[in-house]
């Protein structure tokens, strides 16, 4: 059994495809730091003009086409108030007064949320962030004010970079793991007569594959975070390990960064396990790497391209395959899972993993007969 396990591990990391994917991911996490800073991703200073323009345009547009009624007047005042509150945040940013910036952000988020309570009547064509984003901003702003943290508005520490990486790579981890494990059960197909003669049960073989696939993929994700952290840490310093990060525990809340990282990697472990189970089943059904890849990606695409559909189909794992959205709770908002925080989606993923494994076992048994 130990020999089988060893064989599964060796087969995994000696695979040219997996070496290429791993190199690609590690290079990306290191190189994206440069791109993010160069392109101003996650840089609130660069966004100032944009937000201001957008809020102004909203006010004008609403002013022109939707005045006259009392209800609508309330919305108009709300839009105006957003504009004024943002001016405060902006002043804080320009003056380098971080508490003023934090207060301003808090006000903008509060007023935008109040706008949602008004129903935003007649605002179909305005540019207003969706309610979840507003709540997220509000939670972060509150967390910052309460914990007396200096707000970060640029990528200038390892921590701020890691928080960015959690969001940027979050949607893609599923595909990366799928790419790594998309041929996990195929050696059984290509070397059928050899593998069929090994004196171990298919269950033991699958278990060896599952352990190898899950642990190696997870190791790569951890490696990616370490690469990102070290790159930014060496370049700019590490920053504040207790900086608040928004996640969900039934309702949106903030946790210190170190805890957020642990939670995130735990979610990654569960997602990895699920993905390997999915790859095993698809391999067993299709005997083809690309079909496995495309079928898995199709599931992922539903969550990415049709969020409404994935909210309706909350019990099918599609929206929650986006690790970033899963962590912040965006993936489960407006579904029965929202109240369960991270526990519900984790249970759902594990439940599906069990189902996939069962189906895989059934299919293998049928194939053997």
């Amino acid at each position: 059994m130990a020999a089988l396990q060893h064989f599964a591990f060796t087969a995994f990391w000696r695979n040219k495809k997996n070496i290429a994917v791993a190199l690609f991911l590690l290079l990306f996490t290191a190189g994206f730091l440069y791109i993010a800073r160069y392109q101003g991703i996650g840089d609130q200073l660069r966004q100032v003009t944009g937000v201001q323009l957008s809020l102004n345009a909203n006010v004008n547009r609403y002013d022109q086409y939707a005045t006259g009624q009392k209800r609508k007047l309330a919305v108009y005042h709300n839009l105006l108030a957003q504009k004024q509150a943002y001016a405060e945040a902006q002043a804080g940013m320009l003056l380098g007064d971080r508490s003023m910036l934090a207060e301003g952000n808090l006000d903008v988020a509060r007023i935008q949320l109040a706008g949602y309570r008004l129903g935003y009547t007649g605002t179909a064509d305005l540019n207003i962030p969706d309610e979840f984003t507003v709540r997220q901003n509000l939670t972060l702003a509150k967390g910052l004010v309460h914990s007396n943290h200096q707000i970060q508005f640029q990528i200038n520490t390892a921590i701020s970079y890691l928080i960015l990486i959690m969001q940027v790579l979050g949607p893609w981890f599923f595909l990366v793991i799928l790419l790594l494990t998309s041929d996990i059960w195929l050696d059984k197909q290509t070397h059928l007569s050899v593998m069929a003669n090994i004196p171990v049960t298919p269950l033991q073989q699958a278990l060896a594959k599952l352990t190898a696939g899950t642990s190696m993929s997870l190791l790569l994700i951890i490696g990616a975070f370490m690469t990102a952290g070290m790159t930014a840490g060496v370049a700019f310093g590490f920053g504040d390990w207790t900086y608040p990060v928004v996640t969900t525990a039934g309702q949106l809340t903030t946790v210190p960064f170190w805890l957020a990282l642990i939670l995130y990697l735990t979610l990654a472990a569960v997602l990895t396990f699920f993905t390997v189970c999915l790859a095993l089943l698809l391999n067993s059904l299709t005997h083809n790497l690309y079909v496995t890849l495309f079928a898995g990606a199709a599931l992922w695409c539903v969550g990415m391209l049709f969020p409404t559909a994935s909210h309706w189909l909350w019990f099918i794992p599609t929206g929650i395959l986006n690790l970033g959205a899963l962590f912040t709770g965006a993936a489960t908002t407006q579904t029965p899972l929202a109240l369960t925080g991270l526990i519900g989606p984790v249970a759902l993923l594990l439940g599906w993993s069990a189902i996939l494994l069962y189906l895989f076992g059934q299919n293998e048994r049928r194939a053997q007969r």
Partner: protein
Amino acid sequence: MTMMYFHVQWLRFWHNRKNQAVTLVVLIATLAYCFYSVPSYQPTWPIDPVTIKATRDRRRSELSPFSTSSAVQDYPILVKQATAELAALDQKDYRAYAAVARKQVLYVDERIDPMASIQFYFYPMPYYADDNPFALYDGHYGSQEIAARYLAVSRYRGGTVTGNVLEERTSLQTLQRTISGGLTLFLLLGAVFLANDLVTNDRRHRTVVQGLPLTPWRALTAKTGLAWLATMGITGGFILILILTTVFRYGFGSLGIPTTLFHLPPGRTAYFSTTPLGLYLAKWLVLLALLIWLFTRLTLLLSILFRNEYIPLLLAGGAIFSQALYLESGVGAIKNWTTWTLLTYFDVGKILSGYQKYLYQTDQITFNRGLLLIGGAVLLVELIVLLVTHRRHFALVH
């Protein structure tokens, strides 16, 4: 005799599960695009009589002796233009509408100063979406573009001008919008996916193919031609489905319809010229055909060099989208080398509309330079292929 080899490769190609899966994915994506995205398209500059009327009536009612001086000066003109627009729409005279709407767009555009702290006029809302910091520049670009197009359309005598033509909804214009939106990149990705295992797959049939009296170069060229044809075929299929799903609803459009091209002559004001849509599409096909050949050949070459089918997928696939490594608004004006980088020219639609010039803020990103660079790259890859395949003991299959 190479034809027979090609024939067998062709049969194998379509029996390959990966290629079947790629084709299916493209088909599903095409249908989703044609039945979901195309019908929900909202033009940035819609023909919207309700809003025109509301704005006009509001401006008219606000006009009083106590209005601001700018309002006193501007509103009568804007109201007059809006009335003319409404009258033209009433008579379904879209040429007349285009002529007046153009004046209004330019009139408003002149009154928006990106440097001013307070704005009295605004561009359509999509320009401000996602807190776009370049909203006013993008809006100005859009205004100039729509003005140039409207002027050309109002003078266009090659066919009927409908609302769909103005809103770019006809089949050919939808195709052009899709191309400008980045279709080429996805087709190139398709080419890479179709070509990546063409060489490595032969390993499973080693003894059948290794003794064939065919030079490796010929065999490789047959494979390249095959993947090239398949990708071009998929492109044709996409275009056909797109046309079939739009032609009955919005009309086919015409190859003569003017489409815009941005110019940014150094030291002079930027402007738009127009070219017939047919010319745009023809130029696109030329660059597309070359690029697909380049990517197919490159993928095959990489799969020979690495003796693996996944590494070329990552490398060639990654290259398609690698412009993001250096692309930043206005980068071309500062770093001239970016206008000589091949990666800049993969999104052909944006080269042909001149949007890439706007993005890079340089007039040098042109069709001709694209042709030069892509053609040069094709020649370079051909040279490498020639050297690799003509080594004395080289064999495609090991």
